[in-house]
């Protein structure tokens, strides 16, 4: 395996998630080096040099986020966002199931860098194997003196508490997660104040994604500059790209940022199932605007390029849609999702997501009427930018983009009361 890999550096076996296997592949050496030879500020500097950007979906530069932390507070918290719920995304699961110690080591490095002594992992309540392997890894870490008072015999101490979610996609939004960890329903919070100033229990808090944190051991072991050499100039490193939908070999593929979409789809994932043509690609999880086959013809998987193409690299969950799929019915799967997951706190999202779902459901049942497309467009405009958290935008962008790219399908369904295609979502082979 090449050194340009952060995660896919080993053969997956029945034991690769265990401590001894992680140590055999160099695990916890970065932590040892940081604790013995580096100051916290130096750890932060390595992360800054790496150009690492958050892997949760927003892609915000990690070192910059860390630098916002209010100075001189008595308590700091780090929360690992493991509430992986963005449809199309399943990479954090991979880390828990195959290399949980990589996350633990990453969290310890981050806590050391930020002066955090109590940290949390907020993990999907649905995760089973991931949770069990994580708890086992934490136990191993504690027993090996890697976690708790005096990590590796140093003056640095750190605890990790695992909180399980209980079925709410919005809890992946950082301020919703804080509400949930504090023992409330997961209502997101208005900003200001920002978590870096007043977060968990009003203490300065950093929230990072699993993959982001699990990248830190590599960066500290090999240096930030080495990481910055991988990927593109503005978007460094590798990502765990997931690919799902109508492909032969769906699954997880770690690739350097800047990798071409077509290569991932046709070479790695074996192309469209049943030899069908490609119709559409949702590039980074269901909240990102949909792109057509033409759009991704020469498109590379880096944040700037995808943004320029009118979408987002997001969580790196690529969803592939083949020719013949009914985009109206597919959109209804999405609107149903967001209407179900809206927390209910603010007017535009609570009412808007339910309204969009009703309209799209009505169209997909053959009861669309003239004006429905305009209604949907008006709703997306009314939601975007006007909500407490990004779930509103996440719900509106698919609707807006489907209407831009596939308006004719909606118009047809409304006029004729049936799908332009055969109405299927699954490929008929």
């Amino acid at each position: 395996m090449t050194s340009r890999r952060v995660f896919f550096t080993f053969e997956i076996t029945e034991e690769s998630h265990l401590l001894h296997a992680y140590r055999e592949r160099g695990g916890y050496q970065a932590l040892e080096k940081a604790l013995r030879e580096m100051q916290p500020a130096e750890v932060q500097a390595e992360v800054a040099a790496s150009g690492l950007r958050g892997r949760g979906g927003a892609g915000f530069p990690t070192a910059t986020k860390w630098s916002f932390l209010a100075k001189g507070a008595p308590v700091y918290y780090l929360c690992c966002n493991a509430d992986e719920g963005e449809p199309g995304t399943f990479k954090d699961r991979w880390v828990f199931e195959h290399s949980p110690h990589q996350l633990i080591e990453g969290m310890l490095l981050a806590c050391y860098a930020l002066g955090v002594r109590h940290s949390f992992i907020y993990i999907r309540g649905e995760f089973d194997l991931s949770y069990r392997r994580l708890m086992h890894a934490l136990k191993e870490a504690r027993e090996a003196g890697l976690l708790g008072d005096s990590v590796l015999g140093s003056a640095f101490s750190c605890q990790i508490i695992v909180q399980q979610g209980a079925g709410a996609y919005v809890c992946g939004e950082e301020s919703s997660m804080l509400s949930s960890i504090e023992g409330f329903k997961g209502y997101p919070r208005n900003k200001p104040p920002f978590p870096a100033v007043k977060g968990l229990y009003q203490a300065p808090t950093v929230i990072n994604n699993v993959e982001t944190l699990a990248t830190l051991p590599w960066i500290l072991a090999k240096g930030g500059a080495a990481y910055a050499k991988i990927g593109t100039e503005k978007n460094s490193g590798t990502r765990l790209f997931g690919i799902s939908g109508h492909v032969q070999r769906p699954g997880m593929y770690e690739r350097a940022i800047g990798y071409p979409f077509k290569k991932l789809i046709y070479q790695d994932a074996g192309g469209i199932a049943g030899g069908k043509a490609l119709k559409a690609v949702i590039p980074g999880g269901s909240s990102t605007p949909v792109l057509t086959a033409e759009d991704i013809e020469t498109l590379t998987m880096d944040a700037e390029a995808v943004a320029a193409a009118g979408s987002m690299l997001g969580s790196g969950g690529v969803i592939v849609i083949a020719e013949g799929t009914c985009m109206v019915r597919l959109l209804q799967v999405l609107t149903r999702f967001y209407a179900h997951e809206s927390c209910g706190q603010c007017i535009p999202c609570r009412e808007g997501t339910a309204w969009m779902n009703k309209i799209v459901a009505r169209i997909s049942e053959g009861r669309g009427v003239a004006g429905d497309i305009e209604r949907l467009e008006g709703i997306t405009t009314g939601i975007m930018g006007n909500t407490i958290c990004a779930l509103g935008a996440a719900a509106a962008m698919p609707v807006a983009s489907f209407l831009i790219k596939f308006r004719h399908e909606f118009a047809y369904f409304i006029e004729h009361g049936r799908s332009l295609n055969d109405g299927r979502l699954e490929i008929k082979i």
Partner: protein
Amino acid sequence: MIELTIDNKAVQAEPGETVLQAALRNGIEIPHFCYHPCLSIAGNCRICMVRIKGRPGFHPSCNLPAAPGMEIESDCSDVNAVRKSILQFATLNHPADCPVCDKAGECRLQDYNFKYNGTPSPSIEPKRRQRKFYQINSRIMLDRERCILCSRCVRFTKEISGSGLLGIVERADQSRVERLEQGGVEDPYSDNIIQSCPVGALLSRDFLYKSRVWYLEPVASVCPRCSRGCSVEVWRRQKQWQLRAPGADKNHMAYRISARENPEVNGPWLCNQGFDLHQVINDSVRALAPRLAGAESTLQDALAAAQRLLFEAEKPAAIVSAWGSNEELAAFKSALGSSLTVYTRADREPEAGEVVEDQLLIKADKNPNSYSVEAIFGRRPFAADAGHDVVLVWGDLVDYASLGSAKVIHLATLEPAAGRPAEVLVPISTMFERTGHYTNFEGKVNRFEQVFEKPESVLHAGDLFGRL
């Protein structure tokens, strides 16, 4: 002070103020539902969004700290387009209940809808049905279809009254306000949520369907039910909407009570006893006719009898009322203060089931003007064994037996209890039938305005003292 501009108008903000607070304080109207000056910031209605020049997008002004040099745009087409969207969402499932809703005429949703969204809804979906008569408690009804989930009521019970009675349960568009079914306590401040509800969702069961608010007007007054003396408004029919018979009794009816903002006494809040003041006004059985030893008489005869009793008394005494206004107490002092032995009393004691005292508003002294009484006359409970032969009793809820064998001249607003009648009974006016001042337990003086004309057969006590 922080200098900023709102719609090109120079505005000064206090340090720590939000743009919305600065705007409202400077008379600039930015619409808002969920913001309330005495509650935490919720930021869920999104209708207070404004634009900051030089920054993309819109920002909720209720959560936007005022910063020096900020240029806020709140009155432009972009911002109004956002307001219109928000109102379209807010009215999406809101029932068209205005013709039957008590809040009509004082409803923010109505007002903002007229101002910022004068068009029919673009929706063709059937409106979502919810429960329309959810009982919050015996006094308050919630119509869940009308509720816009601003959370003012929830925040009030959490942050102000502390009862923790209300919350918003469920998720997404199933969200609804609900009370604790188990272990919920009675909230003696519950009715504040009726007043702070920006729409017609929380309604007073007592006021339900009694009147359209545009026939009524508020009169500034003071609640006399404890020594806090909260500022209130007593609502009566407006002069031009006075009814002729049948219904003329409604012209002397107090329709409802609302809290009147007074930062020095009660803030914007009132307790339920205060909210029930109109029942006291309307339902009290008044003493209307002068009486001599129980037999109806004329005012002239009653006064003459009282004068004679006092003149002939060897050891006359008087008991002043802690419900007397500052003006009345002064008149008493100058007319009768030196010729009688003056005692004081607490006219009203806490009743069974009434909150005696708490940390918020309610005081144990259930009388409005004990402070002035004490300042003028000291504190001197009546001694039945002091040998007084004639007692001039001013005030209600008197047990004549406690006065010993003395003859009683009673100046009362209420019909006395059955039993031995007073030698002379002179009916007097209530505080709502004249203007005056009370001084609360902290020494703060609060003015009350006349709400109704006094009944003809009744006298103002202040006029009376000089004639005795």
